[in-house]
Structure formats: C-alpha cells, structure tokens
C-alpha cells in the first residue's frame, strides 16, 4: 500500500535547530520520522591529529546552547585517556559549571515550552497574558547567568574550564555570594510554581510512554552525577563508561543526517524526566512538592518539561550547597592554572557528562598527545528514536480520543517533540 503523507512539520518552533517531522501512513500503521535538517560538521574527524589541549575548546562549539556539556565532557575524556586527576576543587568547580548550565538550559526551555502547558500559541502571547510570571522568569534566568559569569567567566564557552584546571581565580566571598544568589533562585522557583500551578495543563493528560526504558549517569551515593564513570539503565543494568558501545547501538538515520541509538534493540530516552525518576530518592521534600504543583506524571513524555522545572529548583539547592562547601577552602584557586603542559602521552578515555538534555558521551583515543579517534553520542541522538515511537503512540492515542483534525494533531506532535527539548546542532555534530 502506498503511504499517504498525513502530516509534515517542516520546522518545529521553539526547538534548537531545524527539524523535520513527517507522519506517514494510515490510521493503524502511522509512522513518525524525526530528522535533522542541518548538515553534519565532522567535528570528530576534523580534529584528528590536533593537540588534545585544543580539543575541548573546539568541541564546545558543537553547540552554543549546551557548550559547557561538550567542553567538560571533552575535558573528562582527555583526563581519562591520559590518566590525569584534577584537584578536587577544580573538579567541584567544573561540576558547578556543568550544574549551572543544566539549570539554565532547563529553565529557558520551560519558558520556551510554556505555551504548550498554558494553552497559548507562543511565548509572546504568554508574556502579554502573564507579564508578572514572565518577567520573574526572565529575572531568574538573569540571576543564574550572573552566577555563571562570576564563577566561570562567561556562560557560553566558559573560558575558565580546561584540562585539569579552572582558570578563574575566585574568592571565598564571591562563592558565598553565588551560593546565596542560587538559594534565592530555588526559593523564587518554588514561589513561582504556586502561580504556575493554576495555569499548568498537560496537552495530553494520561498519555503514557510506549517505551519506558531510560538511561542516566550512575550516581555515586546521593550525589547528583554531573559526571560519572558508569551509565545506568532503568532495567538496573550498569555499564562502565569504556563499554558504552556494548550497551548503546548507534545507527545512521535513513532519512536525515542525524544518528539514533538503541539499547537492547529498543528505543530509550534520556533527560530531566529520566533523571528525576532515577534520582528520586535524592530530592529534598520542598522540591518534591513541586511534582504535585505541576501534576507531574513521570510516565508521560510531555512531563519532561515539568521535570526540567523541578530539576532546576533542585539543582539550585544542590549547587548553592556545593559552593558553600567550597568557599572556605578556595584560597588555592589562583594556582589552579598551574598545569602548563598536558603530557604528550597516549591512551583511550570515555567522558560521561549529564548534559541538560541527557547523557553525553565523548570517547577519544589520544596518541602522543594528539587526538587520534573521537566518537560523540549526544542526548538528542539517544532520544531520536524514542521521539518517533512516542509520536506514533501519541497519534494513535489522540485518534482513539476522537482527535482527527490535522491542525490539532500537528500541534500535539510539535508539542511532544518540544517536550524532549531536542537539540539538532548537537545531533549532527
């Protein structure tokens, strides 16, 4: 039977990068194709032969939105490959940098996706209808960016981060001030949630994830895993970083430049929703309450947006705690920039980082201090197939509920894609 093109979204608004979503097929056999429009940029191949110290700075350019994720994951991979151990303070500041990015990216995405949860057509409309909430959100974002400038020099392509180093000298009192600012952010987000609660409506309440497997970084104890040496899947499987290829199969999409991945032959998802489920035990009670305020259903892929909000509030507490802990002993910071020469050694290493949108993998082989091989798997690549199966299930679910209007179906699929917060530049690195 020839396929009938049912819906085509040439571009999903409020998504980082351009994406095509085609929904093909008849009622019962609908098929969703999620594809990036961008051309690949060959980051992995073009850096072959370059000194490894240059690699993170270039890799961070894979994405301007989550540059810190690529920068730090790249640094981690190099440190593993060369057996370098950063000083504990350097590691902590790197985790703070990573955390600030997750927090900020999540928060901005909530703002981008908020029309879907308030029945409005776009953010401008939202800002006009709810100017107080909107300006509070903008102001929270500003506070977060202020903290990142203070601790890491700049929010995008943070100049202070490097292999085994943190270049920006920072005083204990500056760290205290940053901690205080973030604490304030946590409180403001909880206050804001009370107001949002009145408006917040899921676009597809009761819709369930057809493929409930997820993947996160394995947390050591009760610490938020900004970085880790292991992956953890929701079926309990734990995979060492070096064996990621045994668990995650990376395949080329037949209809786009992007790749997609499978775990045990099936799609899985990554991101805030996965993290909140996996690390639920670590959530402080006042943050847990936000789940009620936003009526979060962890089994509903749309609720990744609510999860992002909740994780943001949580991270502001985690990070302010870390900064407070760091403040008294930070005197050494000015000397962090001591590492002059990264040894011209050889080795192989896999960096795992929690990027805002999910698990990020940078895998490098270094020969005599130069990059010899690189493989990068980004969260959007991991989510790609999951978006498709969820989309297919969503259309069936909506039709069962009598929704046949093409325009409305399109809107619903677009909202679903947005809820995953996909980043297309990342997926075609």
């Amino acid at each position, binding site marked *: 039977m020839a396929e009938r093109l049912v819906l085509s979204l040439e571009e999903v608004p409020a998504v980082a990068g351009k994406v095509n979503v085609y929904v093909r097929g008849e009622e019962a056999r609908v098929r969703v194709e999620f594809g990036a429009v961008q051309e690949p940029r060959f980051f992995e191949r073009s850096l072959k032969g370059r000194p490894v110290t240059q690699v993170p700075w270039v890799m961070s350019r894979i994405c301007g939105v989550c540059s810190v994720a690529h920068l730090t994951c790249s640094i981690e991979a190099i440190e593993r490959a060369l057996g370098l151990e950063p000083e504990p303070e350097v590691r902590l500041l790197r985790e703070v940098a990573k955390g600030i990015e997750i927090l900020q990216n999540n928060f901005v995405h909530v703002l981008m996706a908020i029309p879907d949860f308030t029945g409005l057509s776009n953010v401008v409309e939202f800002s006009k209808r709810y100017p107080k909430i909107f300006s509070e959100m903008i102001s929270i974002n500003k506070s977060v960016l202020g903290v990142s400038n203070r601790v890491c020099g700049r929010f995008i392509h943070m100049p202070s981060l*490097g292999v085994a180093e943190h270049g920006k000298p920072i005083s204990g009192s500056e760290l205290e001030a940053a901690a205080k600012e973030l604490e304030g952010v946590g409180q403001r987000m909880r206050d804001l949630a009370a107001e949002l609660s009145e408006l917040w409506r899921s676009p597809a309440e009761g819709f369930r994830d057809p493929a409930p497997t997820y993947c996160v970084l394995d947390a050591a104890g009760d610490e938020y895993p900004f970085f880790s040496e292991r992956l953890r899947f929701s079926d309990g499987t734990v995979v060492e970083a070096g064996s990621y290829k045994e668990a995650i199969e990376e395949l080329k999409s037949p209809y786009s430049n992007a790749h997609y991945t499978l775990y045990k032959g099936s799609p899985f998802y990554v991101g805030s929703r996965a993290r909140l489920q996996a690390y639920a035990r670590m959530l402080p009670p006042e943050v847990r309450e936000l789940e009620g305020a936003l009526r979060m259903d962890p089994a509903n892929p749309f609720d990744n947006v609510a999860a992002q909000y909740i994780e943001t509030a949580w991270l502001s507490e985690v990070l302010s705690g870390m900064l407070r802990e760091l403040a008294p002993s930070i005197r050494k910071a000015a000397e962090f920039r001591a590492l*002059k020469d990264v040894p011209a050694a050889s080795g192989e290493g896999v960096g795992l980082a929690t990027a805002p949108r999910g698990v990020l993998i940078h895998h490098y082989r270094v020969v005599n201090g130069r990059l010899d091989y690189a493989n990068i798997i980004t969260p959007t690549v991991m989510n790609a197939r999951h978006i498709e199966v969820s989309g297919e299930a969503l259309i069936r679910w909506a039709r069962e509920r009598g929704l046949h209007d093409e325009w409305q179906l399109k809107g619903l699929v677009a909202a679903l894609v947005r809820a995953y917060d996909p980043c297309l530049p990342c997926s075609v690195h």
Partner: protein
Amino acid sequence: MPKVKIDGRVVEVEPGTTVLAAAEKAGVRIPRLCVVPGLYEGSSCRVCLVKTPAGRLFPACNYRVYRDEEFVATSPDLWEMRRVNFELLLAFHRIECWQCERKGACSLVSLAKELGVEGIPVCSECPLPPSECLLRRGILCLGMITLAGCEAECVAGGGECWGCRGPITRADVLERAFKRYSELGFDVTSVVSKAEIFWNSLDSFGVVKSVAGRASGGGRG
C-alpha cells in the same frame, strides 16, 4: 559674546574660546589626541579636524572664536580624514600592549576604537598587568596577535585568548609578538597551530604565517 553653531547646536562662549571647548559646551564630541589645554596646543595630530560649512578645515583644539561662526564637527569625510591622520601617527607607534602598564587607560587605544582603526591587540584590553601575563606562566595566549575589541573576555574570564576576533595584520606588531613568543619559550609552530583553529580559512592568516615563517627562520609561509 560670540555665538558658535556646531552641528546645528548654538552656544555662547567667551571670545577666544577654542572650537573644541565650545563643542564640549554644546555637547558635541570631537576626538582629540595631542592637545592638553593650557599646556600644549600645538595641533600636531590633526585628529580634531572640523570644517566650516564652506569646507575650510581647522584643528578644533587651537582655532579660537571671536565672532559668530558655524562649524561642522560630524560628517563622514571628517571622520575619514581624522582616521587617516590617526593611522599615520599609529604607524610610528611601537605597539607592544603586552609590555605596557597603561593597558585600558591608553588614549591611543581608546582613540583607535573611537575612529574604528584596527590593528591594536587584545593585550590592550587585558586585565592582567604585564607581570602576570599568561605567557609568563607558560600558557599560550594569542592576545598579542589578535584584534582587540572584546575587552579580553576570555582572559578576564580565566582563560587565554584563542584569537576568535581575527588576526592583527600589521607586520611589525606581528614580528614583535613572535619575538616575544620565542623569548618566552613558545615555538612558532605551536602558536600557528593554535591560531589555525579560528583563522584557517581567513586570507589575513597568510600574513601571520609569513611573519611566523620568518620568525622561525624560514620554512613556513
């Protein structure tokens, strides 16, 4: 008292006031370099040029008004003349901002920015005093050979300059920079390798490579 009209704004001034002072009173900005009012008014830089509506040119810093007169202080041709005058002066200046204590407080640098003259390195905006230059700590910073304009954001933020604003193309500045790199133990190849990241596809990178080639004793370039 004479009335002076500058860019359409009229002010009354004491007889003998300079056009520069009158312009200041009228809120019209005229760039200047050499003048130190009351101390040096020799009009040697010609950066403060203004003109009459008929097109006669004067240096605003020492032309004095005794009767009602009108001047133009803002026009594309004036800016172009000021820029050329300044570039000629700058050509004789030994640009070595990395060694200079004045850094951001330098009037040459601020004038270059005001007039849109390129060729000043990132070091001019660097927050670190020369004694704390990253190069002295073995960190390869491209600030010496990179065009200023970013307020040395990366150095201020705890990193080094990677050259994202593009290369300086003035050969004498590049020569001194490469001399400094080798004095501090950086080999030319590593500087060029780092510069390649942002500059590889720029024509102007050719100038840097040829100076680098000469600095390393031939070979490259």
